[in-house]
């Protein structure tokens, strides 16, 4: 099972109960569990949304949309039932943090989702967990059953007269299902093909009812926000980026792991201090700062604040908080190839630019990496990727194209080094297998 790490610079809010047995409901109660939902019932819908807005919490699933604002879009009156859907599909390469929340603090997700439901006037919560995370689904099934047994879910919760049901749901292997409209399709028993928007889920979602969709970490943050107050939570982070995030640090760092850092923390420090620097005394070549979908940064671009706005200004994204570190012995072309092969595999095939674009990019990069490239391929690869941007049915096409454009723009020389039938300059390097043996 995934081991926990820690660093003195961490600010433990969401991870506060990790390693303390909080999957057990009695232990969770000892650690202030289910207090926030009672506070939410006192505050009422507007009171909760005001606290959320004050917290400046932004979605931890990738897009960084302000959570309070998202909840305020749900119509007060609705002929159809309203729903809250927790996104636990966690499949963005480089991201392994929701997993720890489900394992160590499943009730915080339940409680956060319940608060979201009270805020939007919903009586049904669904917690969707990816199929590969079977042990976490089992933890969640037990947590939900325990919460019912205590009378925290179901009819008349905490004597408030409010009825609130919580259900689990499992996936069966699909990255695309993490996209919110595909997630709803999957929950309706269908292929995870995205829906056209508008209408947005807040208006027409699950089974046609207004639906709030939030990432598991977003929801796990909510009880803490209500207990400490939105304003205090906001102060942990930086302007318009409240609180902390769970950063999954991976690749060539000395101490990979999931660390909870305040928003606004320095990327350089995350790599060199929290992560202990580049493994095996090598140098940094590049970092993919927000999961596989975002453009990379070069070593001279890492003096940057880890918040949604600063990252966008630098031409990349904070995304899912997956920080993938590449050392100087890594072949960028190979890395780009493996990235696009993933998107090719995961494209649902519904729209042509994504289905064909990922396939062509994958074929071109494969041939290119094998030494079969010609000079004009480099621009063709970039051109092909650029033409996918904004032209696909859902953002998976953008997620596939953006990193590739970044690699070509920032590491053109490396692409050129593969030209004219030259073998990959990195292929024989023992770096990879050595690393595996060291650990």
């Amino acid at each position, binding site marked *: *099972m995934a081991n926990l790490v820690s660093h003195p610079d961490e600010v433990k809010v969401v991870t506060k109960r990790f390693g303390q047995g909080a999957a057990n409901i009695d232990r969770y109660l000892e650690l202030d569990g289910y207090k926030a939902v009672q506070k939410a019932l006192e505050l009422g819908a507007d009171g909760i949304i005001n606290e959320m807005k004050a917290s400046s919490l932004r979605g931890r699933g990738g897009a960084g949309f302000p959570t309070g604002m998202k909840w305020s879009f749900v119509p007060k009156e609705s002929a159809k039932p309203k729903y809250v859907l927790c996104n636990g599909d966690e499949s963005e390469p480089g991201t392994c943090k929701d997993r720890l929340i489900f394992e160590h603090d499943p009730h915080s997700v339940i409680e956060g989702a319940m608060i979201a439901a009270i805020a939007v006037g919903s009586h049904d919560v669904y917690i969707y967990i990816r199929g590969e995370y079977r042990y976490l689904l089992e933890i969640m099934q037990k947590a939900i059953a325990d919460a019912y047994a205590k009378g925290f879910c179901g009819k008349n919760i905490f004597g408030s007269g409010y009825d609130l049901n919580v259900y689990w749901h*499992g996936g069966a292997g699909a990255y695309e299902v993490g996209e919110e409209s595909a997630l709803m399709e999957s929950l309706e028993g269908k292929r995870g093909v995205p829906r056209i928007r508008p209408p947005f889920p807040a208006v027409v979602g699950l089974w046609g009812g207004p639906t709030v969709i939030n990432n598991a970490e977003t929801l796990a943050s909510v009880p803490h926000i209500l207990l400490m107050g939105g304003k205090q939570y906001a102060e942990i982070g930086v302007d318009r980026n409240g609180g902390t995030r769970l950063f999954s640090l*991976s690749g060539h760092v000395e101490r990979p792991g999931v660390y909870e850092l305040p928003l606004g923390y320095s990327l350089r420090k995350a790599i060199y201090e929290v992560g202990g620097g580049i493994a095996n005394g090598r140098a940094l070549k590049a970092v993919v700062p927000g999961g596989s979908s975002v453009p990379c940064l070069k070593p001279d671009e890492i003096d940057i604040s880890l918040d949604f706005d600063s990252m966008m200004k630098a031409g990349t994204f904070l995304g899912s908080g997956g920080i993938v570190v590449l050392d100087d012995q890594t072949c960028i072309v190979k890395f780009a190839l493996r990235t696009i092969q993933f998107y090719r595999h995961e494209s649902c095939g519904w729209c042509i630019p994504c289905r064909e674009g990922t396939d062509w990019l994958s074929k071109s990069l494969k041939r290119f990496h094998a030494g079969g490239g010609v000079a004009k391929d480099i621009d063709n690869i970039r051109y092909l990727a650029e033409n996918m941007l904004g032209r696909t049915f859902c953002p998976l096409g953008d997620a596939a194209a953006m990193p590739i454009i970044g690699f070509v723009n920032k590491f053109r020389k490396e692409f050129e080094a593969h030209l004219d039938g030259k073998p990959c300059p990195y292929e024989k390097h023992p770096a*990879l297998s050595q690393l595996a043996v060291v650990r």
Partner: protein
Amino acid sequence: MKFSEQLEARYSDMLTHYPVKRSLLVPFLLYTQDEFGYVTDDAIEELSRRLEITALEIRNVISYYSMLRTKPGGRYNVQVCTNICCLLRGGEEMLAHARKTLDVAVNKGVTADGVFSVEEVECIGACSWAPAMQVNYDFHENLTPEKIDRILDEYRLKAAQQ
């Protein structure tokens, strides 16, 4: 066809989760696969009858989800991640090692004795503990070739004892 008592109980419980019964399809298909080793023709027919959707619709759903299969795998399906974070820490070598050790040449191939199958998979959410693999639903992380050998031995022993 008959589901086991356990699967039948799962079905009845899940029916109470949703306003539309078809909604249980994706997770229930996986539970069905766990019982029979794969999603069998009979199971598809049975679900088609119960959920009042065509067998073709169910097959369409099955083909979308990477964990679902309509052919048997090994008793222990060894799923090695080679996605980016695992790639950086030797995921390809781990896959090659598992294939070589088990003498499985093709992706999703099954060993002659049916005990193992080996599959190359996309990110399984173990990026910070790469390279990683899952054997059925169990995670195995921070892999080395030696560690893989030990893990496979344990499963081999388990299979022999059953």
